[in-house]
């Protein structure tokens, strides 16, 4: 715990509150200082910490990979190029085994999602108090450093993927073909249209929801456990030592979780887009 005056629930609440910029109910713009103030700001506010970390990690990905790409030679590859090529090859193998159409967007899309989500998830491995406490020391009241524990971030990516699903569904099948798919499956009868539409629409909507909420849920839960473990550090030497061991164990396990979640997000994106390209009856 950061200070003796804080209660446990304050501590948890502090860790779960974003640094949100928006309009206060009294009309002036500024940062929210509590979860209640964030709620009062409504939709037209922005989580500055999530955006900054998300953009920062995106830039880290873009610049590091760009550097490797610019220096890429067909000769013997060196360290960074090797790593980038391994990821590129891994993504290429994965996408080409799922996605059988010609589309230059899919593989870079999958790689961006995989690496970016991985980096965002990896922020979870930084001890939970370091960066928020540093921010407090610098005068910033709240700092959530794992963007993928913010549903705005995960749902934004899921909805972006959903937009691509709709775009390619209509592009590949035509508006009529897409509507037919929604209404004449799985029962090809004119009388079954309401039932079909209900089934197909639910399964269509379920795609972005499950995609975004799965990542959010996993990361939020993981972060929560790190916060709970961190609480033990305030409970005396025995608790602190036990907490240290627990944190190490959970971090090791979490390495698996963050990689897996990044991979699942990328692969499901490719699967959904492959379905959007499927024109044959099924």
């Amino acid at each position: 715990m950061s200070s003796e005056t804080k209660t446990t629930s304050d501590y948890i609440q502090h860790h779960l509150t974003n640094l949100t910029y928006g309009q206060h109910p009294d009309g002036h713009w500024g940062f929210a200082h509590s979860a209640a103030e964030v709620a009062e700001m409504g939709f037209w506010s922005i989580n500055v910490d999530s955006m900054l970390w998300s953009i920062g990690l995106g830039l880290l990905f873009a610049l590091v990979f760009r550097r490797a790409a610019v220096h890429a030679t067909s000769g013997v590859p060196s360290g960074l190029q090797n790593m980038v090529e391994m990821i590129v090859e891994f993504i290429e193998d994965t996408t080409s085994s799922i996605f059988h159409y010609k589309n230059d967007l899919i593989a870079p899309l999958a790689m961006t999602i995989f690496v970016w989500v991985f980096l965002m998830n990896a922020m979870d491995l930084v001890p939970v108090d370091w960066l928020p406490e540093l921010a407090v020391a610098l005068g910033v009241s709240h700092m959530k450093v794992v963007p993928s524990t913010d549903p705005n971030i995960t749902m934004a990516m899921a909805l972006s993927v959903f937009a691509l699903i709709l775009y390619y569904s209509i592009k590949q099948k035509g508006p009529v073909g897409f509507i037919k798919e929604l209404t004449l499956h799985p029962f090809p009868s004119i009388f079954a249209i309401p039932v079909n539409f209900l089934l197909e629409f639910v399964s269509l909507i379920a795609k972005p929801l499950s995609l975004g909420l799965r990542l959010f849920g996993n990361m939020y839960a993981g972060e929560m456990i790190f916060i709970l473990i961190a609480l033990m550090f305030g409970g005396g030497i025995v608790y602190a030592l036990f907490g240290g061991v627990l944190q190490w164990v959970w971090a090791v396990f979490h390495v698996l979780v963050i990689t897996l979640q990044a991979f699942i997000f990328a692969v499901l994106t490719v699967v959904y887009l492959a379905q959007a390209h499927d024109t044959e009856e099924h």
Partner: protein
Amino acid sequence: MNLNATIIGQSITFFFFVWFCMKFIWPLVGAAMRERQETIAAGLRASEEADQKLALAASNAEEELTTAKAEASAIIEQARARASQMVEEAKTEARGEGERLVEAAKAEIEQEVNRAKESLRAQVAELVVTGAERIIEDSVDADKHDAMLKKLAAEL
């Protein structure tokens, strides 16, 4: 969990990074990897070709060697034949020369003998004449009996 404009900001960011990756990262890395694949494939092909060439060269060399050996033995055979022929010729020539020399020596010896006989005959005739003169004291006219004396000398 409250949704706010972050969702819009993140969507824009998302499409920006996907676009950046598609335009500026993926094609370059992919091109380098494909190029390396081709280089490696070409290298493997070249080494296979070199292997084949080496095998071909080895068999060629063996062939050449065999031909050269055959040629060399033919040349040696020829040289040997020529040498024995030369020896044979030399022998024949030597034998001829020897015979000729022997013939010449014999002829000379015969000549010498004849010459000696001739001279002996002349001396004997003279001795006979001298002896007869002594015996018969001037009774023998050299001119008169010359023919007879010659006949006598020839009989000796």
